[in-house]
């Protein structure tokens, strides 16, 4: 994917561009808010990474302006990165039109995972009522899960967890992303509670089957994907 980094910290921007390129993406960077808005409006980017404090035009205004513009690129997914980490700052960011909000400093893997999710999300998932990955089925209306036609008993949160994983099947999701989307928790509990949930979920959907669907991505998070065809 092609990403525009709007960030006035040169070293940080350089690192981001380097890391994105290394992950197989194309990245440009710009340090000025006005310039960033112009570039973003021209379009051609799959996602924007926007810092909040920028010279000439602050990040939130930039996003608001872009969202209200007539540009074809007005709905480009945006991830806000900021040193302002408080809950209310986050709310402001999302209200301005950001798709996600990441507090500095963050792990690059976290940013990358979120980028892929916001880009995947806006490409549009039609309103399906049954989600499928390989032989795993999730019936959203009946709140039922099945694998290889065998019903699986899931608790409410386990169902939400699995739903999030399936919706982002093939993409890496981090522990904080799961906490945010399943629990609406925007803080890190000190202990890694998510791992225990995942291992429970694994016991239910992977244990009795040959091919595992949930994979651990070391140091980053998890990924639910169909086993590769042999």
């Amino acid at each position, binding site marked *: 994917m092609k990403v525009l980094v709007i960030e006035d910290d040169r070293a940080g921007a350089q690192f981001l561009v380097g890391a994105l390129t290394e992950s197989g993406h194309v990245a440009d960077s710009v340090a000025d808010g006005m310039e960033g808005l112009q570039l973003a409006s021209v379009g051609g980017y799959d996602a924007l990474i926007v810092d909040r404090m920028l010279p000439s035009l602050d990040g939130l205004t930039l996003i608001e302006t872009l969202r209200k513009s007539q540009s074809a690129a007005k709905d480009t997914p945006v991830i806000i990165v900021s040193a302002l*980490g*408080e*809950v*209310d700052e986050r709310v402001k960011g999302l209200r301005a039109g950001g798709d996600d909000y990441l*507090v500095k*400093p963050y*792990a690059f893997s976290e940013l990358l995972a979120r980028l892929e999710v916001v880009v995947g999300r806006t490409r549009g998932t039609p309103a399906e009522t049954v989600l499928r990955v390989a032989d795993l089925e999730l019936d959203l209306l009946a709140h039922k899960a099945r694998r290889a036609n065998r019903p699986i008993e899931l*608790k*409410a*949160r386990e169902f939400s967890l699995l739903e999030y994983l399936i919706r982002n099947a093939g993409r890496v999701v981090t522990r904080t992303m799961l906490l945010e989307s399943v*629990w*609406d*928790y*925007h*803080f*890190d*509990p*000190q*202990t890694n*509670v998510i791992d*225990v*949930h995942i291992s*429970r979920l694994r016991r239910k959907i992977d244990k009795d089957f040959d091919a595992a669907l949930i994979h651990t991505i070391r*140091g980053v998070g998890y990924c639910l994907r169909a086993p590769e065809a042999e």
Partner: protein
Amino acid sequence: MRPKQNRPSGSIGLRLTLATAALLFTAFAVVVGVAYLATLEGYDTEVANYVETEIAELMTMYTRDGSRELVREVRKRARSADGRYTVYLFQQSNGRMAGNLERWPEGVGDSAELSNISMDEAPGDYRVLRQLRVRSLTVGSDRLLVGRDITDRSTFKNSLRIGSLVALGIAILLTIGAGLAISRNVLGRIQGMNQTIVRIREGAGEERVPLSARGDEFDQLAVQFNELVEENRRLVEVTREVTNNIAHDLRTPLARMRASVESALAEQRRGQTHDDPHEGPHDLSRIDDALHAVLAETDSLLETFNGLLQLSQVESGALRDTMEDVSLEDIAQAAIELYEPLAEEAGLELVAELRPGLTVHANRHLLAQALTNLIDNAIKYGRVGGTIDVQTDRSSGDTSVDGHPRLIVRDRGPGIPAADRDRVLLRFTRLDDSRTQPGTGLGLSFVAAVAELHDAELALDDAAPGLRITITFPR
């Protein structure tokens, strides 16, 4: 800058003494003066009344019975016991006189108002000077004079004056004494307080302003001051402990990072000097491990810093306007669902007892975070095989906060000794001094700050066995 001590020019001692004495003396002098004047006035009024009554009686008699009867009456009255102090003189137009005055005094007219006169008399072989207060009246062609001897008045006045002066003299001594006593009492206690403060500032941290048994305003001031000193001492101690803890908590990961970086550098040098192709991958994996270790330490340091920042943000109270009506049950339910598998893994059972329909005015994110901190602690310190109770209810009758929504987390672990229950709310306090359990040491401080932000009451008590933490909300 320390203010100068014991400046005599600034002392209120002398001023207070003088002011008190002057005030008391003035009051006393006014009383004595009024008494003096009132006594004299009373004397004069009595004399005047007496003279007026006598002369009126004699006039009535004269009008009714004629001059002959009057002469007899005047003679009678002049001879009576009282006649020594009362003078009568009835002078008829033919020059005949009756009464106890040897002649009509000079300067007194035929019909004179009450006035003072002096009169020379030689009743025997001596002469006296009498002071008289007389009144005269003309009746037809005759004239009548009645008066009262007031020679004693000046004696009386003198005694009165001396008495008053003696009284005033005593008053002066008394008032100066009282002034001294009051100022010594007031100033003595102020000075005592002042000296104690000086000693406390010079390092006698344990000293306190002494109290008298009276419980007066000075004692109240001393109590307030002592509490201020106590609070101050406590804050200094807290700051010292927190600073020590911060230093410890930051130094340890920094030291580990430094060690990791050092070993990675050493490994790298070894790889460069021994150009052994078999050692290459081995070296690289060690460097890789070191870098991961540094990353992990950095993350934990960042977590600590974020925790500190968030804590001060909550403590600043800036988030008050982010509050909304929040269901306690929902908050607790979500946290329980998050921690239930972890608790089970740790051999503990999370037991929920949630009363529905309890809402509190709160910031849901902070409240959720506080609750997860409590559950996290309960799992860390709870006894294996025991339960952790998470409860929401209303407080019952035995407390002052009757019927308020409560959030309770209880474990069956070793609990916290009563003496440490205040201390654990401080930043970086950990009761296991080895600090073997993971965590930032900010968890309970955060809970306390969140409770404070919500005007809620945080209580830690002994659940025998275990620790019970109760957050009681204001409504």
